[in-house]
């Protein structure tokens, strides 16, 4: 293994006298600083070049980009040597929006854009005020209207026809929007000095965190009808959403509890000294400080939910992953699942990477 270089305040190689060609100097410092390092670099370069070469061969040179509608013969001709990207233009509407009525698909598309705008606005530090909560309520209400319709001349679309990217975004975002206040209550409960409330909160958090999300989803899809009075039933999507909210609540509660612990004792005492009630103390003094502390881990938790919503595939809800998997059931296109998976992996990656970049920039600036 090579030497460990990136230790804090490590003396940089750049301190050496600066002579020669800067490119050569860079190569020498970063790739060929010693003989084993040089050998490693050459080997890695060779492997990398071979990997990139075969990917380019498969994904670009030999790939099929477009075929006549519903005709995969061109793709089958290059099977094994080239990618069939033609499946994406063929199936992208289904992958992105599922079985939503074809002519109405501008509505989920607009909903997706609204979600992105909402996420973007939530990252602006200047907007971290109470108004942000109203913005969230407004945006989520607007998205619900767009998706369901039934008012303002929009035709009604029941939620068993929803699918694809909007469903993924709805599950994750509504999970956060409802799980967050719930998580705050549970976190406060866990730090409360009332023993019954504390033990209930601990029990809830540990039970949920101790079991896999898959089993919670099974519970929501199989056991929920048993729990309810005879004849009363709610939609499968909503049941999964409830499971995700309960799941999110437990994890968010632990993150928020970390923030509560970081608020100095003096702040609590000062609030008590002012005679503030429990709720006013938490709302005005403790929580604003606590949440600011934990925004980067909150973003990371959100990334995790966003990825975890894909588990609803197991109980048959049409999120992005399920629509992708369904799109390749079509016998003509069955063999080209890798291309479809790469396509939706790129979508998931784009969302998660943007959020993790943001979380990292927050971590870098929060120390100042």
């Amino acid at each position: 293994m090579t030497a460990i270089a990136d230790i804090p305040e490590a003396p940089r190689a750049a301190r050496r006298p600066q002579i020669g060609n800067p490119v050569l100097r860079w190569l020498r410092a970063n790739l060929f600083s010693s003989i084993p390092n040089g050998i490693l670099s050459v080997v890695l370069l060779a492997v990398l070049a071979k990997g990139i070469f075969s990917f380019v061969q498969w994904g670009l040179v030999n790939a099929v980009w477009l075929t006549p509608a519903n005709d995969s013969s061109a793709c089958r001709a290059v099977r094994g040597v080239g990618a069939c990207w033609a499946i994406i233009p063929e199936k992208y509407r289904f992958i992105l929006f599922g079985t939503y009525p074809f002519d109405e698909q501008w509505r989920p598309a607009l909903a997706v854009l609204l979600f992105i705008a909402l996420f973007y606005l939530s990252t602006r530090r200047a907007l971290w005020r109470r108004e942000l909560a109203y913005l969230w309520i407004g945006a989520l209400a607007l998205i619900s209207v767009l998706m369901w319709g039934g008012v303002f001349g929009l035709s009604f679309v029941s939620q068993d026809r929803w699918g694809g990217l909007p469903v993924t975004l709805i599950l994750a975002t509504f999970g956060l929007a409802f799980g967050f206040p719930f998580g705050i209550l549970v976190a406060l409960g866990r730090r409360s000095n009332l023993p019954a409330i504390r033990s209930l909160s601990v029990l809830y958090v540990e039970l949920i965190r101790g079991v896999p999300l898959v089993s919670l989803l099974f519970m929501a899809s199989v056991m929920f009808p048993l729990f309810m009075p005879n004849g009363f039933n709610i939609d499968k999507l909503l049941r999964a959403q409830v499971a995700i909210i309960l799941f999110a609540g437990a994890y968010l509660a632990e993150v928020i509890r970390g923030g509560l612990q970081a608020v100095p004792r003096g702040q609590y005492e000062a609030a008590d000294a002012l005679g503030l009630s429990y709720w006013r103390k938490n709302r005005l003094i403790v929580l604003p400080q606590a949440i600011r502390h934990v925004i980067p881990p909150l973003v990371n938790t959100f990334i995790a939910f966003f990825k975890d919503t894909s588990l609803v595939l197991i109980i048959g809800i049409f999120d992005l992953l399920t629509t992708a998997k369904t799109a390749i059931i079509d016998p003509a296109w069955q063999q080209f699942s890798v291309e479809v998976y790469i396509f939706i992996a790129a979508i998931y990656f784009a969302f998660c990477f943007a959020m993790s970049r943001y979380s990292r920039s927050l971590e870098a600036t929060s120390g100042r």
Partner: protein
Amino acid sequence: MTSDAPRPPPRRRFFGAFGRRELKGLFWQVLVVGIAVAVIVFLWSNTVTNLSARRITTGFAFLGREAGMPISDSLLAYNPRDSYLWAFAVGIANTLRVAVIGIVLATILGTVIGISRLSANWLLSRLAAVYVETLRDIPLLLQLLFWYVLMQALPAARAAWRPIEGVFLSNRGLILPAIPIGTPHLWVLGTAVLGLVVFYVIRRRLIAQQMRDGKPRPAWPFAVGLIVVVPSLVSVLLGVSWTIEWPELRGFNFVGGLTLAPEYFALLIALVTYTSAFIAEIVRSGIQSVPRGQWDAANALGLRRSFMLRQIILPQALRVIVPPMTSQYLNLTKNSSLAVAIGYQDVVSIANTTLNQTGQAIEAIALIMAVFLTISLGISFFMNWYNSRIALVER
């Protein structure tokens, strides 16, 4: 609110009437617990009504009935005529098989990648960074399906790839040469594990003696004796055979060797690569958390590099690494339940089949929860014990 008013403001007179903080606390507790109990009673009574309407008897009596479900890939001997209880045991063994091996491999791979990210070699550290970023930002289930599709696209057994002599990779899975394990082998391994424990105790005593009189006492003769010589003697006495069995192609399938089914192999690869990306970040930040001065001081003492890493850097880095590592291990174990998506029969998948066959939803889910809570608690206890062992001892 004025600062010299000890009385509560008038709008809280309801609580004010109780006067004391304790009474108010009691009120809230009774309220919350009351709501929780009411909800549970409501759900429970509905469930009882619904179950009796569907003629399902609650209770775990069904565990004794014949399971009748096929389990293709299992560690324990199983046939469909066995009971549900045994089917669950097989499922638990399958979960543990993927979780334990996954944890070991993910730790190794994650550590290598985490150290690579700190490498002086620009190319290596960049590649490690790309690995971490890509794998962390794609859902595990998608990666799992992707690996499974790749497994299915592998050539048939007759045209299997042979990366190394004796290793076959085909759509039947990965086939490795193996030593067939029987009861005598377990005796030998048991002796070795026992030897390891005894050696550990002896070593502690030797170190304690060295602390007293300062004379170094080598521990390695004990290690050789207890871990190598004694088990070898047992092996010779029992006449255990350690010949490796090489797999070979007969007809359409392989005979001999160890077969990792495609479902198991895909699940293992997905869990290991995904978790290793998170472990790599933990290892990297752990090593970076050791102050530069510690390296300098160790260098100034003229310590050998391996000694320095083992005795100075690693113990300090581990303090930062172990707690988040525990939660990664727990995540990996819980994520192994995604097996149900590709048809590897872990405990969740078997509980799900049981639930569909018998309608015993509550019992099946309760069993899943019990199994995972037990595994989680087990890992937590072990890691907490380890953590307290390596924690900073302040005098």
